[in-house]
């Protein structure tokens, strides 16, 4: 799909970028034990300084973010951080599946993926797979965002294994985690990250994407990071955009 840079430039002319990332604000939903995003003023022209400049504190898993393998993988060849994720795995074709019919406590099963492939075409090695549960509609800053943190559905262990066998580059979702709420064993995290399939969580706007689209998600180059907030974008033909 993007084998050469010239083809990419041609696509840029009649496509547009869809931002799949939530805006990072204070009080956005966060994993209960994770640090929340905070800001502190370093300098400001309002106080006579030459520029405006803030410092930030945040978890590596703030907002729309990528999990690096070492987030769950303690040792072995997959024990590495954000800065070592190969970038050619993060510029890829994305298959986006709509499973908004799944609700609290449900799992996306291998059969869902096979049915999707029958309808839209096979998932190929190095594709990203983006799963839309419709959970981004619950995203909100402040107490209202609590609904986002309740009972989200997730990927079953079988489905994760199936995607690993397919050789996909990463799995993305519009929920807080690729494993369902309340999972204690995190089978999807272990299956994916253990096989160097990266994970992107808290995506938004997946409803705008066609079944296949060019996708980019670039994490900050955090030395040994367990993850990083990412700006995730997809390139969509002008006529496909319904916004």
């Amino acid at each position, binding site marked *: 799909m*993007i*084998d*050469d*840079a*010239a083809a*990419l*430039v041609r696509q*840029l002319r009649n496509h547009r*970028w869809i*931002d799949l990332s*939530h*805006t*990072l*604000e204070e009080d956005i939903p966060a994993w209960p*034990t*994770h*640090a929340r995003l905070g*800001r502190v003023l*370093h300098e400001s*022209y*309002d106080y006579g300084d*030459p*520029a*405006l*400049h*803030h*410092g*930030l*504190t*945040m*978890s*590596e898993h703030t*907002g*729309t973010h990528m999990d690096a393998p*070492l*987030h*769950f*993988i*303690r040792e072995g060849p997959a024990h590495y951080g954000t*800065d070592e994720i190969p*970038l*050619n795995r993060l*510029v890829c074709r994305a298959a986006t599946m709509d499973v908004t019919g799944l609700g609290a406590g449900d799992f996306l099963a291998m059969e869902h993926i096979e049915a999707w492939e029958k309808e839209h075409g096979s998932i190929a090695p190095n594709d990203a797979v983006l799963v839309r549960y419709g959970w981004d509609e619950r995203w909100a800053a402040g107490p209202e965002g609590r609904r986002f943190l309740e009972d989200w559905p997730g990927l079953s262990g079988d489905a994760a294994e199936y995607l690993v066998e397919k050789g996909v580059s990463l799995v993305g979702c519009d929920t807080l985690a690729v494993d369902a709420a309340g999972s204690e064993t*995190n089978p999807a*995290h272990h299956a994916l990250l253990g096989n160097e399939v990266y994970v992107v969580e808290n995506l938004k706007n997946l409803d705008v994407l066609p079944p296949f689209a060019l996708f*980019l998600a*670039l*994490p*900050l*180059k*955090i*030395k*040994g*990071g*367990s*993850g990083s*907030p*990412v*700006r995730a*974008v997809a390139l969509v033909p002008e006529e496909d955009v319904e916004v």
Partner: protein
Amino acid sequence: MEIIDITAPVSPRSVMWPGQDAPSHEFTSHTDRGDPNTVSRWALSAHTGTHVDARMHFIPGGWPMEELDLARCVGPCRVVDLTHVDGHVGRADLEAAGVAGTARLLLKTRNSEQRLLERDGFEEGYAAISLEAAEYLVEIGAETVGVDYLSVEPFEDGEFRTHHVLLGEDVVLLEGLALADVGPGEYVLACLPIKLAGSDGAPARAILMRDSQ
């Protein structure tokens, strides 16, 4: 397709503007301590390493990071060889390089040859964009300009005139690009900053793409 990373790492060793603290982090959980996973909390400046300046960084009322037009940061670009320039990049240097007509320009200077971004301490003598060169970039309609050290501004300009000229005319500024191992020429740039609300800047991951050679 070849992908070249032009990002300076975020780490406690990141070189910073004088007076700014380097990033620091603390493990809030760790698999080595028996926790189910590993997570860090980071404290860092919005202008750490490879980053994008929002217009509001110097222009009161200017756009904050979440309003950045991503098309400015993704698309064809040119890496311009200015490594021969001794002082700061001047108007004549840009004219000689023939940069007019290119929307996204990444300026590779002696900073890259000296690998200043990889050094531990801040170097005051870095090459930046002189005021007249900034005015020229605005004249030729440059939309995005990237530099290979922490600032587009000559260190000695206490009035930050280069920033005011470029941000004043809504040029998007990419700072701290690691261009040491990149040759001059045409590429496709993707510089994706994190989407910080109301922020004067944001760290970014930046890559160049081109056909495999």
